[in-house]
């Protein structure tokens, strides 16, 4: 690429408004007729922790690999600080990856693994030593410098893989399901550590996972991918509380999908009626189980009430998932913390704003 086209590309990125740190513009990827990614556009701020969330086949890993340079894109462009990123070979991109399998070099000890990126760039031995020490200290792996990857645990490999990427001071760190091989407790601990590390360093993290609770716990922003498209993106609380589609509502946690008909600003869902601000006609809503409480203990403002019979309960430690039968056809799931007895009829309540209208299902085929 010549300097002339370089500045031209830069100008075009600038003209679309203020310069975005990492800009993904209409990126598509197809293998033959099969579209893995379909016109993905995404703007990421410097220092943001963004999670690409989706089930397998959603395209999340493909998007990450396109940004890293391991896959070529079929359409679209990617800019980093206004410069074309997608035209560079992987080894010229100022982004580094933490692989799902860690991919620590088995024939090198921990020190040499972390030093690798600096060595191939010709950094001096003295500087390599101090930077590797600092990087390993940051992930508390200094004591393992002489160990080979096969002699350290999964969590330790994870830390070394992080240090190996971070020592090169990437502009963006790409993490491909880095915690999926760890057991549940270690996972929570590593989530906390990753988050703290990211806030400390101020590096942009782009994290891929299929685990919705991990995505909600760790991110500044969650991008939910479904069949190669962005289903919804937003802050964890917002995307959880206000899913836009039934797919989003279900993928981001358990949800009741309630059908109803809107007339004169009232949604008639048969089991109950609630005031909504929607045009007339049929509608579908998401109602989170934890929004429902027994009317006696419901918070103030829980203005939608209904009666139902408790027909099943599932104890989950932190709460109980209770199946409420409102009528022959209508059952709702509620997460209730108080003790509740089976077979009883009772009055339950939720706030009208927790009844979230969903977009008509476009993905259903």
């Amino acid at each position: 690429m010549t300097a002339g086209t370089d500045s031209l590309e830069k100008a075009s990125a600038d003209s679309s408004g203020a310069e975005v740190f990492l800009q993904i513009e209409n990126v598509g990827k197809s293998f033959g007729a099969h579209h893995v990614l379909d016109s993905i556009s995404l703007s990421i701020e410097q220092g943001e922790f963004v999670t690409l969330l989706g089930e397998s086949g959603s395209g999340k890993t493909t998007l990450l690999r396109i940004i890293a340079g391991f896959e070529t894109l079929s359409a679209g462009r990617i800019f980093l600080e206004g410069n074309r990123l997608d035209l560079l070979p992987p080894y010229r991109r100022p982004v580094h990856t933490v692989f799902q399998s860690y991919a620590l070099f088995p024939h090198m000890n921990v020190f040499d693994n972390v030093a690798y990126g600096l060595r191939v760039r010709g950094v001096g031995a003295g500087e390599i030593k101090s930077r590797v020490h600092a990087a390993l200290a940051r992930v508390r792996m200094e004591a393992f410098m002489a160990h080979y990857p096969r002699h350290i645990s999964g969590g330790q490999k994870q830390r070394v893989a992080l240090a190996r990427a971070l020592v090169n001071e990437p502009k963006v760190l790409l993490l491909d399901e880095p915690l999926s091989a760890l057991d549940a407790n270690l996972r929570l601990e590593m989530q906390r550590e990753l988050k703290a590390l990211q806030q400390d360093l101020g590096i942009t993290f782009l994290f891929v996972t299929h685990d919705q609770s991990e995505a909600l716990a760790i991110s500044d922003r969650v991008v939910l991918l479904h069949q190669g498209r962005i289903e919804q993106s937003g802050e964890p609380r917002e995307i959880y509380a206000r899913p836009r589609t039934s797919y989003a509502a279900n993928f981001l946690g358990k949800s009741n999908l309630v059908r109803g008909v809107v007339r004169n600003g009232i949604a008639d869902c048969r089991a109950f009626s609630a005031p909504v601000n929607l045009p007339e006609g049929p509608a579908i809503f998401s109602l989170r189980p934890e929004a429902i409480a027994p009317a006696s203990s419901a918070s103030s403002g829980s203005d939608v009430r209904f009666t139902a019979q408790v027909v099943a309960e599932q104890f989950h430690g932190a709460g109980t998932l209770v199946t409420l039968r409102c009528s022959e056809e209508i059952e709702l799931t509620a997460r209730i913390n108080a003790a509740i007895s089976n077979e009883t009829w009772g009055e339950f309540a939720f706030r009208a704003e927790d009844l979230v209208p969903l977009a008509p299902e476009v993905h259903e085929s």
Partner: protein
Amino acid sequence: MSGSRRPVILTFFAACAYGFLYLPIVVLIVYSFNRDGVGGFPPRHLTLDWYRVLFADGSMWTAVGNSVIVAAASVVISILIGFPAAYALDRYSFPGKDAFRRLILLPLIVPGVITGISLLLLVVSGGFRLSLITVVLGHATALTAVATTEIFAGLSRLDRSYEEASADLGASGWQTLRRILLPLMRTSLLGTALLVFTLSMDEIAVTFFLIGRENTLPLEIWSRLRRGATPEMNAISTLIFFFSVAAILASQRLIAGGETSLTPSAEVAGVTQ
């Protein structure tokens, strides 16, 4: 069928098969220690005399030296061609890849006689003299296919994410090759080298057509057998046998990454002989 008892006929058949395969080798080894040479049963008067004769036999050792030179050169050439070929086959898709694979692997199934005659015609019509160099060319032609198959198997077992991690960390293609790929492929390459070396050491068919004035070991043995079998031949054959078995076992170990298994290379060894 009752219980764990195998039918007698099956056991008998298996014994016959193993006898057919291994009895000649056992006879060969035993008679290399027999004072009275090949004649006379049962063998009496065990002796190491024939090994003494063998070690004093200058022209035999010249032939061994020639064979080692040819085998070493074949290893270098077949790996220098086989590694890039296997890499291309494993890591890239390109137009004509299938034809490329077939052409690379064709020498595996072409009989040695054909390889030998065609190379002989080429060498003669090109006005070159037959020498160890033409033998090396013949061996390399046949064995590059073996090397490619073995290295391909090693490459396809290697997790590709190591190379991606290397590129991701800023290493160029050459740096990745030198610092990551070659070290990780070391055992596979060593195993391939041993296998190719062994196959070259006892190759006869191709060698026969391309040999000049200097004999390789198998041809030296062959030419002497025409003047009558001596127990010295048994001695050198016994040594070759144990060397080959050790080398093949070692190469299988290395190629299989520590597992002892009958990989296609054992079949390959059968095809080229």
